[in-house]
């Protein structure tokens, strides 16, 4: 058994890596998506069980305690959180992964520093006589993984706090970018110095250098994310997801763990591509999201003439009851108001009257691409009623009524007309070309990007003020009244 065990563990890691890849592949098609997570879940169980069986590990009670506590807390929070809060939960769990990768780097580097200083000369380059010695390439990747993991940890927690609404403001101060550059440079210099010194500067100094290095990475993650506005958060979360994957892959190399290397790298690449797709959907480059402060040009934006014209729920219901085609454009406001069920109920009532209803979804509506699809799916809206931006945009001119519910920036015509606007160039749902537009909105404020919406002042637009859920409920009631 003793000789068989290492082979079995290696085989388990191989199986885990295989199951992760199959699982992700299945998740990339709607038909098989549901079983995909199961495959990946089995892979995770196999890998964790194999690790418990690894010979020569200490602290097994601590290990079990931490696994049980971490799993229980996350399972409980993940179960009870509302679907609308999913984006910030993904950010939170992702930050935890980044923190774990950083902790691995920290622990391994501290152990290596301690070993070298107690057994000088035993870790001479290449031929590492002990598990506590790191090869030079492993030391480099331990640092890099620690850095990326810590950035992802701090950044994801800020993203979580912002989406959770604990932190409304964007913190911008002059010289912020320069400060970030200085921190990055300091971390590079410090890392290079400890590498060349190879922990030969004494244990105390080595430990201090490693801890300061980690602190610099945390500070960078914090400062990088603070100035980023909520509209860009989906891209940022996706980026940190990719970064955590990379950190996991690098720390996997340090630990010589194949499952970590492969899973981490696959997520790193997939996450990078996903980030690019999202950034493209918003017509912004990644550099622009990270370094250009959103809204900085806002002061120069055109002012919009005219007034917002309100409408009563009764009139709006009549308008849609006798329409031939109605398009519903949901946005984050619908998610906040938990209005997806009521909206679908209203849409069903319209469909029962013979109105052709479709839901039009902007690629970045909500706080995550596909966020609205998830919510509508929760309410039970069938796939074939949901249209992508490219499909529905040509249909708007022949649409009688567009009901915009809680969406703002993604229907703002300013993106096409005003070059000075921060969202200029972003592809939008062209709802202004429809015959009538009804906008359900809580108040007269601006959207998440803080930009005035020219749509609300358009001649064919009417404002139905109120919370999304209440508005949908009164529309349903008024629609019933139409039939008497």
């Amino acid at each position, binding site marked *: 058994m003793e000789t068989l065990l290492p082979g079995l563990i290696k085989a388990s890691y191989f199986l885990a890596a295989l199951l992760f*890849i199959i699982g992700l592949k299945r998740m990339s098609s709607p038909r098989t998506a549901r079983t995909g997570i199961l495959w990946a879940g089995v892979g995770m169980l196999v890998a964790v069980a194999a690790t418990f069986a690894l010979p020569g*590990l200490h602290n097994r009670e601590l290990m079990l305690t931490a696994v049980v506590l971490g799993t229980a807390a996350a399972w409980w929070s993940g179960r009870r959180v509302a679907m609308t809060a999913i984006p910030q939960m993904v950010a939170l769990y992702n930050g*935890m992964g980044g923190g*774990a990768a950083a902790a691995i780097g920290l622990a391994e580097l501290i152990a290596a520093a301690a070993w070298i200083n107690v057994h000088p000369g035993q870790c001479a380059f290449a031929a590492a006589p002990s598990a506590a010695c790191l090869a030079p390439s492993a030391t480099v990747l331990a640092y890099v993984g620690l850095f990326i993991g810590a950035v992802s940890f701090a950044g994801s927690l800020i993203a979580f706090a912002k989406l959770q609404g604990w932190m409304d403001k964007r913190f911008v101060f002059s010289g912020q970018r320069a400060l970030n550059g200085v921190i990055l440079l300091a971390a590079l210099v410090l890392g290079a110095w400890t590498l060349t010194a190879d922990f030969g500067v004494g244990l105390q100094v080595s430990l201090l250098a490693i801890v300061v290095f980690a602190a610099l990475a945390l500070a960078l993650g914090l400062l990088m994310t603070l100035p980023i506005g909520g509209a860009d958060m989906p891209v940022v979360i996706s980026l940190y997801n990719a970064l955590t994957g990379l950190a996991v892959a690098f720390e996997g190399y340090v630990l010589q763990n194949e499952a970590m290397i492969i899973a981490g790298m696959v997520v790193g690449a997939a996450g990078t591509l996903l980030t690019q797709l999202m950034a493209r959907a918003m017509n912004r480059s990644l550099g622009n999201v990270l370094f250009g402060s959103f809204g900085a040009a806002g002061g120069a934006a055109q002012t919009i003439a005219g007034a917002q014209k309100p409408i009563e729920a009764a009139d709006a219901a009549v308008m849609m009851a006798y329409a031939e085609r109605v398009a519903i454009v949901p946005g984050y406001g619908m998610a906040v108001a938990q209005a997806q069920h009521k909206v679908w109920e209203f849409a069903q009532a319209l469909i029962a009257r013979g109105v052709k209803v479709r839901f039009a979804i902007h690629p970045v509506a909500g706080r995550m691409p596909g966020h609205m699809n998830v919510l509508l799916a929760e309410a039970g809206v069938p796939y074939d009623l949901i249209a992508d931006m490219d499909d529905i945009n040509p249909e708007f001119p022949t649409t009688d009524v567009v009901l915009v519910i809680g969406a703002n920036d993604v229907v703002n015509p300013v993106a096409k007309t005003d070059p000075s606007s921060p969202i200029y160039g972003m592809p939008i749902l062209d709802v202004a070309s429809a015959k009538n537009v009804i906008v359900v909105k809580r108040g007269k404020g601006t959207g998440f990007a803080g930009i005035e919406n020219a749509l609300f002042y358009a001649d064919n637009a009417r404002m139905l003020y109120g919370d999304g859920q209440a508005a949908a409920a009164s529309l349903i009631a008024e629609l019933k009244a139409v039939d008497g």
Partner: protein
Amino acid sequence: MIDGFLALYIFMLAAFTGYEIIARVPVILHTPLMSGSNFVHGIVVVGAMVALGHAQTPLEQAIGFVGVLLGAGNAAGGYVVTERMLDMFKASRKKEGG
């Protein structure tokens, strides 16, 4: 022992695998996939367990313990959230069929 160029090859092939998996995904699945890949890098819990297993001093133990705690949170939370999201897709297809 995975070293030098062998590691580079694995990095490269895994990166292409990840890229190809995502390359032709409909927008509707972007959020579940992001969440699913978030779960997959929860494999970090395994590494944190090994790091905790190597730990000698109380400081290393503490760091390792926090690492395992966070890693397990990543894996479990990522799984639950992804499963809940994908569950809804199933419900909606059922209605469509019936």
